[in-house]
């Protein structure tokens, strides 16, 4: 006969107001196998937990049901209490009579009856509970950071400074990300390159950081503490070890007119190139699609001029396997494009803004390149169409953002501030120019942010018009902006020389594919999902994977850096232990009954099921059975539901436990 203790919590008034807790305890006491039942005002308080611990000793309890709040709230608390009372923590269960009962029902009799039922179900369950021992797995104290923008660099530096090895993987030929493209940064207007470049160099030179640029994640295996990452190092056609970064190859390359994506195609670059002068590593890459050698088999100039002989046309992609214990995902964002999207894409372009066909309608990042001292115009604001200095510039905010019609309903968060910054930069560079901004709401929460926005209006004389733009069209060499001012209720028409659209912040293309490789979840826009919006903002629901920066949602630089450091701190917390404990909610195979139909293997989302051969002492194969690798098992139990003979059982959710609950109804 079991000796179960039942502890009914009042939760102050939260439960006791609608549930007659004394009655629940009294009825519980009458249940078979219950040795002790009581109620208490706050079970989770120190005295409450002591009450529980004393009762375990006094009544020699071999199982506990705490009828209180949701197990999601306090299961850990009470299991720890049980543990310190000498009881296996998995013999402690919670009956949720708050969230599932007292808070959702008003009738006291009904709520009390329901609470008693819930307690009875949990008592029946706890009788079938087994003692479980947490599983320990060793931790590989090496971290992978995916993405070499400011988020990835910050996270990598923090982890490396703490003394751990870091593998930093970047898709582009250079690290730096979007921040390397920016001119100045709000709200202080310090030069982006000046604060970014030193960090890039630090990351590259750090003894604990291994840098893989021009590389992508091929596959991810394993689990927290024990991931195996396969990195695809794309063929650079340049041997990194040999290259000195002298730049002769780029200078001599006969292909010069390739649009430079880093400069938003405003400038050009050769076929063998570094994306920008401050690139890290300063090792060029051959753009094979545009290289004469690769297109025609003729040329070879770069190879001829390279002193160290670093050019290798035969180079192939390489796959490198990196064992790591934790992963920081920092893949960043890209800007929404107003061009017409292919059929089937949920995102629509802006036909009313010309679908991107009007040359002097540009996006915010293009404006950054125009304003950047290291940009294609040397920091002069010049129109892409004719290179003239625009005297009337119209900025339009919320293009794509907050527009459910266009497939995006969220606020991109950074545009209000960078548009204010743009008006200032413009005014600083074109003193006789006038900036106009069409906006819906100015969202400027943040330290010194609102003051910054006000400064754009009050001191830099930007004209802010509250209202949206219906249409843009070319008229001669001007762009007619048809907008409205909803404050005065009139239509506004501006003949602009340049129009800058603050287009929406979106996750990187391919964010979903990477998420599938990592086994992390993402929202309908493909932003990665954190485990808890408030309390676990940098953790993924998948253990051992952390998020930093705009891949999780639109973020400005201060927020991104904070989150990157937070993710790094989480990695360090993980690395502070040599071994990890995890809940032993894993499936086990009853080898006696298993007939190896391998239904379990077919449905396992984790690939945790293997075939195991049972041999006799002579080594003859007797039969094959299924085997669940407890390190890989995620604990979903799909195998058990699928197994015809129930020869695989999920600890913590066995058929016995569940049937007992159903039967207690």
């Amino acid at each position: 006969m079991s000796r179960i203790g039942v502890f009914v919590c009042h939760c102050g008034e939260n439960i006791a107001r609608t549930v007659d807790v004394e009655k629940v305890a009294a009825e519980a006491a009458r249940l078979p196998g219950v040795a002790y039942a009581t109620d208490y005002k706050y079970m989770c308080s120190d005295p409450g937990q002591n009450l529980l611990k004393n009762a375990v000793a006094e009544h020699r309890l071999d199982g506990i049901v705490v009828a209180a709040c949701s197990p999601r709230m306090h299961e850990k608390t009470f299991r720890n209490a049980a543990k310190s009372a000498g009881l296996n923590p998995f013999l402690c269960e919670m009956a949720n009579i708050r969230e599932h009962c007292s808070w959702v029902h008003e009738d006291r009799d009904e709520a009390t009856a329901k609470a008693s039922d819930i307690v009875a179900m949990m008592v029946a369950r706890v009788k079938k509970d087994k003692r479980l021992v947490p599983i320990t797995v060793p931790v590989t104290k090496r971290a992978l950071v995916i993405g070499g923008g400011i988020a990835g660099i910050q996270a990598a530096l923090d982890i490396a400074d703490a003394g751990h090895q870091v593998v930093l993987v970047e898709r582009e030929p250079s690290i730096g990300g979007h921040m390397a493209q920016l001119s100045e940064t709000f709200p202080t207007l310090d030069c982006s390159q000046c604060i970014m470049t030193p960090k890039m160099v630090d990351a590259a030179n750090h003894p604990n950081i291994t840098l893989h640029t021009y590389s992508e994640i091929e596959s991810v295996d394993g689990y927290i503490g024990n991931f195996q990452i396969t990195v695809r190092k794309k063929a650079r056609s340049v041997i990194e070890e040999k290259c000195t970064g002298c730049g002769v190859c780029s200078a001599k390359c006969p292909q010069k007119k390739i649009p430079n994506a880093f400069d938003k195609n405003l400038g050009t670059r050769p076929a063998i190139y570094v994306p920008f002068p401050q690139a890290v590593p300063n090792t060029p890459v051959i753009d094979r699609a545009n290289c004469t050698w690769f297109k025609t088999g003729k040329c070879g100039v770069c190879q001829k001029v390279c002193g160290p002989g670093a050019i290798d046309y035969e180079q192939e992609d390489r796959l490198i396997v990196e064992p790591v214990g934790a992963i920081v995902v920092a893949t960043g964002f890209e800007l929404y494009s107003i061009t017409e999207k292919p059929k089937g894409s949920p995102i629509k372009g802006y036909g009313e803004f010309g679908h991107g066909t009007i040359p002097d309608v540009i996006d915010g990042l293009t404006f950054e390149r125009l304003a950047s001292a290291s940009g294609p115009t040397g920091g002069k604001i010049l129109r892409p169409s004719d290179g003239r200095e625009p005297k009337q510039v119209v900025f339009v905010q919320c293009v794509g953002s907050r527009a459910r019609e266009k497939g995006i309903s969220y606020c991109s968060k950074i545009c209000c501030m960078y548009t204010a910054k743009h008006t200032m930069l413009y005014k600083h560079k074109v003193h006789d120019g006038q900036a106009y901004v069409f906006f819906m709401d100015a969202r400027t929460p943040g330290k010194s942010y609102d003051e910054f926005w006000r400064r754009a209006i009050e001191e830099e004389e930007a004209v802010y018009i509250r209202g949206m733009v219906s249409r843009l069209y070319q008229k001669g060499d001007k762009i007619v902006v048809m907008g409205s001012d909803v404050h005065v209720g009139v239509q506004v028409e501006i003949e602009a020389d340049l129009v800058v659209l603050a287009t929406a912040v979106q996750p990187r293309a391919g964010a979903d594919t990477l998420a599938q490789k990592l086994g992390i979840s993402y929202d309908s826009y493909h932003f990665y999902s954190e485990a808890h919006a408030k309390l676990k903002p940098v953790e993924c629901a998948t253990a051992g994977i952390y998020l930093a920066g705009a891949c999780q949602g639109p973020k400005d630089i201060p927020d991104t850096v904070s989150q990157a450091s937070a993710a790094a701190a989480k990695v360090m917390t993980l690395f502070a232990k040599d071994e990890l404990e995890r809940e032993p909610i894993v499936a086990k195979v009853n080898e006696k009954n298993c007939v190896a139909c391998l239904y379990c293997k077919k449905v396992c989302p984790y690939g945790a099921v293997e075939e195991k051969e049972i041999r006799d002492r002579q080594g003859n194969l007797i039969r094959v059975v299924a085997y669940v690798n407890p390190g890989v098992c995620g604990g979903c139990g799909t195998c058990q539901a699928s197994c015809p003979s129930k020869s695989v059982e999920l600890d913590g959710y066995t058929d016995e436990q569940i049937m007992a609950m159903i039967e207690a109804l």
Partner: protein
Amino acid sequence: MHAHKENHAFEPKIVAFVCTWCTYAGADLAGTARLQYPANTRVVKFPCTGRIDPVFILRAFQKGADGVLVSGCHPGDCHYMAGNFHARRRFAAFRALLDFIGVDLNRLQFSWVSAAEGGKWVEVATELTERVRAMGPMREFRELETEEQWSGAIDTPELQAAYEAIP
């Protein structure tokens, strides 16, 4: 005390099989938001809808449930990536079988309720409770429990009395 409360002649027993990550959390959210719904639902928590064996549904009906609710994460949101996709097929087949056996499928509800959908949990639980209330008790399985072999019907006064005595 509660003037607005209606007195029903029949209070159905509803068993809800839910996954811990989405629907259980959604039901918690309904609690946190103090949304009200009928007190007929009894929740059995699973790690994932993928763990829910059709046998449990059958067992619940046999043990006196008047309605069964099965609920988990929306497709694509499964904490275990694909548990709910497997569950979806399994339940599609199982409900076809129950229908063919002659169980009124209005007593069996499947839903996706995410951790954020406290309101939807309330809606689903309320709707099923009220629908089953209108249908009356699940007599079919309960009658089977009372019957002995070879007895096609409750045709003796003793059996009738025994049936009436079932709570």
